[in-house]
């Protein structure tokens, strides 16, 4: 806080009205930027925020490592004979679960950010409307990448050996990022719809816990009751986990990849427009 007080107390340099006038004379206006350019600019804003508050990376580093250690050692012996054997199966699943869980912070940051005066300015700019929201998701994609790299590194230390090699692992992460980007539109919607940060958080928990745990991340669904199998086998998280697991194991699970991409498209098509409608009304 020492910077704050020193700034407050210092005598402000005077406003130079002459140079101000000179700046205002230049009335030339650059051509309007395209949608890609403005989205990337908002993505840059998200990255600047990470740069200024690096503590916010805690949830994409410590939380995934904790998940990985906890579930590997908790279930490993019972389910697969040893943690080392279990991690071959469970790492892609926990990777999927952790990243999908982290996406819910998007809703909280949108909710906190949108109330600030700067959003009035953004919304009064002549730019492609969704770019501010896409900017968040681009910044978040960086966070998910960091989380994935951290988990894989820890996994490798614990004995995970992906048969798919670097290519398989990269393909798996890429698919996970695509899905997370699409899935996050649910959170931007809630972030804009709900009034407080707390309510965004609790609604997000209600969605994210059943969705990630009721999947094939930890165990094969065959032992589950029939009604639950029906849900689990059709859950987007199950498709994603199977696809990522397959890719990292060196297979090409075409069906699961197709299902994952299909779900992704559906999320964007349904929740994207709802988000933008709420954004325009905010």
């Amino acid at each position, binding site marked *: 806080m020492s910077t704050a007080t020193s700034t407050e107390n210092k005598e402000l340099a005077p406003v130079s009205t002459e140079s101000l006038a000179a700046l205002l*004379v230049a009335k030339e206006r*650059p051509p309007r930027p395209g949608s890609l350019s403005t989205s990337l600019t908002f993505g840059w804003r998200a990255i600047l925020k990470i740069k200024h508050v690096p503590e916010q990376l805690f949830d994409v580093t410590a939380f995934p490592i904790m998940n990985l250690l906890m579930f590997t050692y908790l279930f490993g012996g019972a389910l697969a004979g040893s943690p080392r054997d279990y991690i071959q199966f469970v790492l892609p699943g926990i990777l999927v679960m952790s990243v999908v869980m982290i996406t819910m912070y998007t809703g909280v940051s949108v909710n906190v950010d949108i109330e600030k005066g700067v959003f009035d300015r953004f919304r009064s700019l002549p730019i492609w409307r969704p770019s501010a929201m896409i900017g968040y998701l681009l910044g978040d994609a960086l966070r998910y990448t960091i989380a994935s790299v951290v988990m894989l590194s820890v996994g490798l230390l614990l004995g995970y050996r992906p048969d798919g090699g670097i290519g398989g692992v990269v393909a798996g992460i890429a698919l996970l990022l695509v899905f997370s980007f699409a899935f996050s539109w649910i959170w931007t919607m809630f972030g804009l719809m709900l009034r407080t940060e707390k309510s965004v958080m609790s609604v997000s928990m209600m969605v994210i816990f059943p969705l990630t745990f009721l999947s094939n991340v930890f165990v094969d669904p065959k032992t589950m009751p029939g009604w639950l199998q029906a849900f689990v086998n059709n859950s987007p998280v199950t498709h994603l986990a199977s696809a990522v697991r397959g890719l990292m194991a060196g297979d090409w699970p075409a069906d699961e990849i197709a299902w994952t991409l299909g779900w992704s498209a559906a999320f964007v098509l349904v929740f994207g427009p709802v988000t933008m409608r709420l954004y325009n009304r905010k």
Partner: protein
Amino acid sequence: MSTQTSGLAIETAGLVKTFGETRAVDGVDLAVPAGTVYGVLGPNGAGKTTTVKMLATLLRPDGGEAHVFGHDIVREADEVRGRVSLTGQYASVDEDLTGTENLVLLGRLLGHRKPAARTRAAQLLEAFGLTEAAGKQVKHYSGGMRRRIDIAASILSTPDLLFLDEPTTGLDPRSRNQVWDIVRAVVAQGTTVLLTTQYLDEADQLASRIAVIDRGKVIAEGTKGELKASVGAGSVHLRLRDPERREEAVRILRDLLTAEVQLEPDPVALTARLGVAASDTAADQAARALGELARAGITVDNFSLGQPSLDEVFLALTGHDTGQGTGPETKDEVAA
């Protein structure tokens, strides 16, 4: 930009915005000439910010219509956004970013390439005396610095119309004067400024026309002179040498000017409010009053002729005061 030289920057007819049961803006008609500072004056909750938000395309009106440089604010919102710039009541820059980052970000969003955005940002920071603070996060800025960076962000691309929503609320008198200087510099370059304020002297200082808003309605509109004339021609303040003679002086002034005379707390001071008389200017009336007092042998130590304050205007128009504590006493402090 031919619209700069003639015509109206803003034209609204019966603009309405309701929030639940409350009619925050209840049929506002405005006609803002291009190239001027237009003051929208009213107490807290009068509907000023809601009106500005509708004009800046942030809120959709529930009734009536509005045009900005001839563009409908609902149907041609994008056209309007291309011409206007908004400095909101609360910091409208990103507090987590530095001054430079904020201006570069907005420059990029306006379509400047990165080098151009950087140059423009540096020039603006320089002109606003913020070069030293350029690399600091805005949340560490003082109130005056925030206002500057806010306004700098609004003129990255010189807008045709600039909305300033209560630009000096919460600023010390010095920073306030500096914001006024900036506003004058901006309008001198042909930008139209719509300024909302709850400070009567601010509207008096900057605006050429003023709309007074109360409870979502425009209750008076006109030039400063017209508004003031509607409540009287002005007032004469006198300080007498001898407090004993004050009663006598009051009697003389009442008879002569048929004016309302108030005794001031100071035992030698009094104020006569002058009526509007077409043939008789305030100065004429004051001269006659002084002559009459001299004839009666009452010595006047000090004399001043005052325009009616906008406080008085507000009181006369609404029947209640601004409720903001901007009475004569506080006003003097601010002006000092």
